[in-house]
């Protein structure tokens, strides 16, 4: 028999409860067992001893679910969004945000390059200008504007639509703050500019892939930009929810 430590125990418990109770209930249940570990350790037990005495997380999840009905109603807008629809929303938004760059550079591959490797893609609009010419603002403007549109599209959408972009609206998703509150323009700027654009450039574009893997292992499916921005993505149950 393998005895789980605290982190393993709580992770397994979450996995067994996810999708079967709402987020608030899940956190509430996890809280109880986390507190139990605290008390057990104070009592001089090891994490393994405590988890051994608790029984298997799967069994606990079964019992807790069987004990229902809890009187807590399902809270709209707080279900963790699955990664599939998020990737589709990301692709839609990436395409929309790259459209001006594709138009300016007439290079379709910018649309694929930009969301994944912006550092490489952002050179395209600048390269359009022929070498050995005196650059004027008129020459540079289309390129700069298309880059600005690329970078600002998501945070502006999220600020206007409380955490939603066109892609997210189509897929029925929205970004909220980690604590469940509505996204504010400040948080969306932080999430998109620092958490996505800057991190992506600094990591030479690999943050997109790392982010996806990170979210796979995150209980709340939080990506790197979610971690930086203090946000998470949930199923959108209504415009004001």
């Amino acid at each position, binding site marked *: 028999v393998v005895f789980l430590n605290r982190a393993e125990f709580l992770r397994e418990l979450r996995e067994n409860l996810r999708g079967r109770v709402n987020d608030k209930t899940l956190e509430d*249940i996890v*809280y*109880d*067992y986390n*507190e*139990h570990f*605290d*008390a*057990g350790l*104070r*009592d001089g037990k090891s994490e393994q001893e*405590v988890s051994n*005495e*608790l*029984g298997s997380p799967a*069994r*606990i999840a079964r*019992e*807790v679910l*069987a*004990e*229902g*009905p*809890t*009187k*807590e109603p399902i809270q709209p807008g707080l279900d963790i969004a699955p990664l599939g629809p998020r990737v589709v929303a990301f692709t839609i938004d990436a395409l929309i945000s790259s459209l001006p760059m594709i138009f300016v550079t007439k290079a379709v591959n910018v649309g694929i390059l930009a969301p994944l490797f912006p550092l490489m893609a952002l050179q395209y609009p600048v390269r359009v200008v022929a070498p050995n010419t005196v650059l004027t603002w008129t020459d540079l403007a289309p390129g700069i504007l298309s880059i600005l549109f690329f970078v600002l599209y998501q945070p502006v959408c999220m600020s206007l639509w409380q955490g939603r972009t066109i892609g997210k609206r189509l897929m029925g998703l929205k970004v909220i703050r980690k604590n469940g509150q509505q996204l504010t323009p400040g948080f969306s700027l932080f999430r998109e500019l620092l958490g996505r654009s800057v991190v992506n450039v600094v990591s030479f574009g690999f943050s997109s892939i790392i982010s996806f893997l990170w979210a796979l292992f995150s209980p709340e499916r939080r990506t790197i930009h979610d971690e930086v921005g203090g946000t998470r993505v949930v199923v959108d149950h209504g415009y004001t929810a």
Partner: protein
Amino acid sequence: MDTQLKKGVLEMCILYQLREQEAYGYEIMKLIKDIFPEVYDGSIYAILRRLNAEGFTEAYMRESQNGPPRKYYRITNEGHEYLKNSISEWRVLVNGVQRLGI
């Protein structure tokens, strides 16, 4: 904790303990383990959740002198009422069983 009967008995014991004084999960668990050592610690919280959901107990956070705040449970008026009924049902049950000579 496989049968409804056992669950009911554990509920009654927990409520009975809380009648005396408010307690946090770990304390309740230890009290129950003293009498029923084979009960899984994890099951106690499932019962506490149900008692809370039914309104027989209520939970609140209380600061502790040595350590982080803890979730304490206290019995409600409905809980007292329910406990009284449980105890009389229990007595009827035990009496019946004893009259058979078990």
